């Protein structure tokens, strides 16, 4: 019993966020398959729970994992409210909480035990706001889904873009439950900006892109830019040619040209019937690495605080590129790449063409 190291992995495995859960679970299992399940003499055990993206369920599951299963680390968390709901438990029980998906900036501030290996939306949005004005885009309409991450993306893009001399004539917010993007896109078309900046949860990205094409907006001279969620690697291939040429900023592309990534993608696809890993998967994969490294370093001694200390400041080469867990903010620092959708070997890929190095979460610099 004493020789077991338990990781409580709480993810949305059903419902609309289910893909997030699937990607992360697959990545975590891949990591364990690649690196063994005995570290520092301890057997690592992964306990998977489905929280259906309902925060109070997440919280109860976390509480039960901590109290009954005595897990050493809590990990996962598909959506921000779920992560926030569990933060007090991490604090109270001194259990490190590794956020592998949720991307709102403020999560790491909710508890000193939160460590994030995914990304924050401001990171991606700000990078785009820096790139766009340098590439002839002066006038941008934003279109985001009306919830935490969307508002983050809108706020950070807008302020940085305007700081860089750009103009945002209209900031559109799409309700979370929204079957048809037509009115919003028509509005954009009538406003005729240089580009449309989009953030929507990954599933809806395809719809936006198709309707963007259908409405002939590209032909009207409007470019489509956004954070990488829109051209989610997982689905990019199915989106078809409408996606070609879309420029996004993100921390990970399955096409990232590094040896580490090639191996990661190959192994991942082999283990999962050809499913392509996306940015969620890499968050889960790196999260497992952070936990493993911390366990190695502490040898499993000293409880949660020691573990947490060992997580802070880790630097490593991830499939996404170099990653640094900022000891101060416990948030991830990584490169943000600018990518364009292109066809390579008959498949669509986010091909990186520019990089902004070591981006800290701009949300933390206020």
């Amino acid at each position, binding site marked *: 019993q004493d020789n077991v190291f338990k990781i409580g992995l709480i993810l949305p495995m*059903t*419902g*609309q966020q*289910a*893909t997030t859960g*699937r990607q992360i679970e697959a990545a975590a299992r891949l990591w364990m398959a690649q690196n063994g399940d005995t570290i520092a003499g301890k057997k690592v055990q992964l306990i998977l729970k489905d929280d259906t993206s309902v925060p109070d369920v997440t919280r109860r599951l976390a509480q039960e994992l901590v109290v009954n299963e005595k897990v050493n680390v809590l990990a996962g968390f598909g959506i921000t409210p779920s992560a926030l709901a569990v933060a007090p438990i991490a604090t109270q029980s001194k259990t490190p909480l590794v956020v592998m998906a949720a991307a709102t900036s403020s999560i790491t501030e909710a508890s000193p035990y939160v460590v994030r290996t995914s990304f924050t939306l401001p990171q991606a949005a700000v990078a785009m706001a820096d790139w766009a004005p340098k590439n002839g885009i002066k006038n941008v309409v934003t279109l985001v889904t*009306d919830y935490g991450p969307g508002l983050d993306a809108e706020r950070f893009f807008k302020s940085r873009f305007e700081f860089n001399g750009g103009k945002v004539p209209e900031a*559109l*917010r*799409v*309700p*979370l*439950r*929204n*079957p*048809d993007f*037509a*009115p*919003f896109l*028509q*509005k954009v078309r009538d406003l005729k900006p240089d580009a449309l900046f989009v953030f929507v949860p990954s*599933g*809806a990205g*395809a*719809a936006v892109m*198709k*309707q963007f*094409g*259908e*409405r*002939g907006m590209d032909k009207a001279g409007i470019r489509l830019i956004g954070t990488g969620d829109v051209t989610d690697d*997982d*689905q990019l291939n*199915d*989106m*078809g040619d409408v996606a070609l040429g879309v420029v996004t900023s993100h921390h990970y592309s399955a096409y990232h040209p590094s040896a580490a990534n090639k191996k990661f993608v190959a192994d991942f696809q082999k283990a999962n019937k050809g*499913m392509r890993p996306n940015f969620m998967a890499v968050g889960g994969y790196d999260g497992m690495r952070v936990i493993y490294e911390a366990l190695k370093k502490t040898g499993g001694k000293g409880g949660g605080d020691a573990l947490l200390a060992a997580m802070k400041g880790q630097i490593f080469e991830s499939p996404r590129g170099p990653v640094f867990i900022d000891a101060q903010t416990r948030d991830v620092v990584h490169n943000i790449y600018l990518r364009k959708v292109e066809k390579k070997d008959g498949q669509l890929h986010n091909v990186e063409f520019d990089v902004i190095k070591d981006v800290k979460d701009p949300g933390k610099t206020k």
Partner: protein
Amino acid sequence: MLTILFDGIAYGMLLFVLAVGLAVTMGLMNFINLAHGAFAMTGGYITVLLMQRLDVPFLVCLPLAFLGAALLGAVLERTLYRPLYRKPHLDQVLFSIGLVFMSVAAVDYYVGSTQQIMQLPEWLKGRTEIGSLGMGHYRLFIIAVCAALTVGLQFILAKTRFGSRLRASVDDQRVAAGMGINVNVVFLSTFAFGSGLAGLGGALGAEVLGLDPSFPLKFMIYFLIVVAVGGTSSITGPLLAALLLGIADVAGKYYIPRMGAFIVYALMIVILLWRPNGLFVRQGGKA
């Protein structure tokens, strides 16, 4: 703005095809079938999978989606639904929600939980501009299909005796049978037809609304809104309701984007408070 009106009509028409099958099963058969979306999803997946894996042309997929969903509906009607007609509505809710849960998990298991994206044929992808009116070809196509469907349905229900025989069977199965109506056949064909319509709706809607295993739950509310506002006793009711909601939703989101999410719900509540039995109820009294 004509374009907004056009988009609203197309969206409304789409809602209509998706919901009209429910108007048939729920309104005419008086069965609360919350699993309607599951039949729509079936149609959607049939189309997407046939197109992706077997390269079946889109136009061939549509009737196949209808038939597939209708067949599934017929099989389920014979095996599971039939004993439930006489159960209380709440039991029907429980049962059909159970079916939805099962269908969601089953699709997830066999196809996976990712969004399915459909590739339309080229001729449906384009767009025609006439002055300030821009019409997407796919939306034009939806409108055409729905219009044809409405006319057909209206004909079946109004000009043939099928409609009144169906309603008679629903009102009183025992006596309807005693008057020579083959109640089982009437129910079976109606249910299969309603499910088929759902399947067709799902096939048409997958492009615009997206398709993943949570489809039946995600859009259940919209189907219900259309049927509730339209009233459950005719085909024109849900059609007008769907158009009204579609146009109001699209126009509302265009002109006052901030209020986007409220408009449909507020409109529904106001209409239902004003006309508790739906906007377009069947009224007697005219000799």
